[in-house]
């Protein structure tokens, strides 16, 4: 019998949560501006206002318009984002959309690979008691190694056999993606009730038929939440992989160069782009879930 699993409708979520979310956003923006004044004041006094007398209005205005503030004001980040997207062509490394596309590509390739790996592992684990005992502890242990420690090793090894560019980044994204998918799918593939498996037994169904007609469809409500987590984890993996490569492109590389040169506005722009990308990817998964499971209710 069915699991209640269909994700909440977006339209409904938006209309129910729209007001609370905007209220919180308003508070965040106000607090952000206030914090920018507090954090940037010292630098503004020492660098920008040192030569002239100033009043507090000038101080506030200066803290919100500095070249290299400790904390840029929201409108500075917004302007930087806007100009990067409008002043430069899509293929230019000065356009943030270009970097987002680079990171999204690694994320998606790694996500697909990780999902496939997770599916294969979970099917193997569910069908073999030996593999269940042999593999699961290693899979769990694999996630206790920090991705930041693994990333350089993967890059070096794959680089030595000539794999550069998307491949190593995708592998690191995959490393983070496959885990939630594996764990959820082991649970999902085991979710059919005794009566359902016995029923297929009376029809003399083969294990493959049981997998295809019962276990996989029954596991979908478990799979989609894992895909949402997995795609977000894959984005983290892809960006982490962009840090040690000295990569020329990608949001991670953009973050790194920004911090090299003290370009805080650039760092924040890249961060906002990464957040937008993460939201878009998880929302796409939620939409897919909603579409696929739209007919499911508890029988």
């Amino acid at each position, binding site marked *: 019998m069915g699991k209640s699993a269909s994700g909440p409708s977006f339209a409904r979520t938006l209309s129910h949560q729209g007001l609370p979310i905007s209220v919180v956003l308003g508070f965040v923006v106000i607090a952000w501006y206030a914090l920018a004044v507090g954090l940037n004041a010292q630098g503004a006094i020492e660098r920008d206002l040192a030569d002239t007398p100033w009043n507090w209005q000038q101080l506030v205005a200066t803290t919100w318009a500095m070249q290299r503030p400790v904390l840029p004001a929201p409108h500075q980040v917004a302007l930087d984002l806007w100009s990067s997207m409008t002043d430069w062509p899509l293929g230019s490394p000065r356009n943030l959309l270009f970097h987002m596309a680079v990171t999204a590509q690694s994320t998606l390739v790694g996500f697909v690979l990780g999902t496939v790996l997770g599916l294969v592992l979970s099917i193997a684990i569910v069908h073999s008691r030996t593999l269940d005992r042999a593999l699961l502890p290693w899979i769990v242990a694999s996630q206790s190694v920090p991705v930041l420690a693994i990333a350089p090793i993967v890059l070096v090894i794959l680089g030595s056999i000539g794999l550069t560019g998307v491949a190593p980044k995708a592998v690191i994204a995959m490393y983070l993606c496959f885990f939630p998918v594996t764990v959820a799918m082991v649970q999902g593939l085991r979710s059919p009730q005794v009566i359902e498996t016995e029923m297929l037994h009376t029809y*003399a169904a083969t294990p493959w*038929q049981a997998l295809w007609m019962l276990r996989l469809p029954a596991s979908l409500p478990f799979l989609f939440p894992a895909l949402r987590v997995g795609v977000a984890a894959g984005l983290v993996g892809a960006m982490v992989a962009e840090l040690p490569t000295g990569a020329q492109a990608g949001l991670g590389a953009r973050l790194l160069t920004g911090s090299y040169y003290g370009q805080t506005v650039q760092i924040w722009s890249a961060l906002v782009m990464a957040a937008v990308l993460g939201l878009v990817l998880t929302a796409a998964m939620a939409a897919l879930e909603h579409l696929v499971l739209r007919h499911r209710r*508890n029988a």
Partner: protein
Amino acid sequence: MTQANPPADSTSPLAVDVRKASLVYNPLQAPVHALREVDLAVQPGEFVSLIGPSGCGKTTLLRVIADLEHITAGSVLVNGVSPHEARLTRAYGYVFQAPGLFAWRTVLGNVKLPLQIHGRSSAECDAIARDQLARVGLTGFESKYPWQLSGGMQQRVSIARALSFEPRILMMDEPFGALDEITRDRLNEQLQQMWERERRTVVFVTHSIAEAVYLSTRIVVMSPRPGRIVKVIESPLPDTRTLDMRDTNQFVEVAHAVREALAHGHDG
């Protein structure tokens, strides 16, 4: 009085032939005799009910016949072969206590399930499933999903599914136990009419005396600890039955005999 048993064809094997079947769980530490030396012969075309209190082994016996459990001693034949072979040759359809419909399939898709497993062509699956749904009175519900149906309708879908590949034997494990009395009566009536029309062998597990008497040509009364058959009652009722017949003296007498046997089995 009508002869309830159809004449046994000497060349065709018994639909179900259970001899001295025993099933002991946990034989080493604390043996539980789920079944002890059970003998049961079901002729093709009979409607046999297994009735008894909880723990009497009625469901276990049905599951043994369906190759869902295995006896520890004795022999079981279904259509003259082992339950395992009978299952592989799709000799029986099994209706469980719960409908067990797949939430991701439509009503039609659920009825098609066994046919798809058996590798029938898509067009064939579709035609057969539509026909089976019509036979349980669910034409027009093909594209509904299980959650859109009442409990009684869901169980009718599960019967249509069990019958979709025209098995020679239908096994039912308290199929209407979870339904309200009015729905149950209506489904009993439909099932009885379907049996009269098609004369398929039915082995039916229930704990309702009225249900057993109304449906069966033969009632097998079982008793627990150890699970065994205490009495087999041939029904004198005619094959054509109506729900009103439950008030006739004949019906009340059979029900009384079943109740006596149940009480007797409980004392002994």
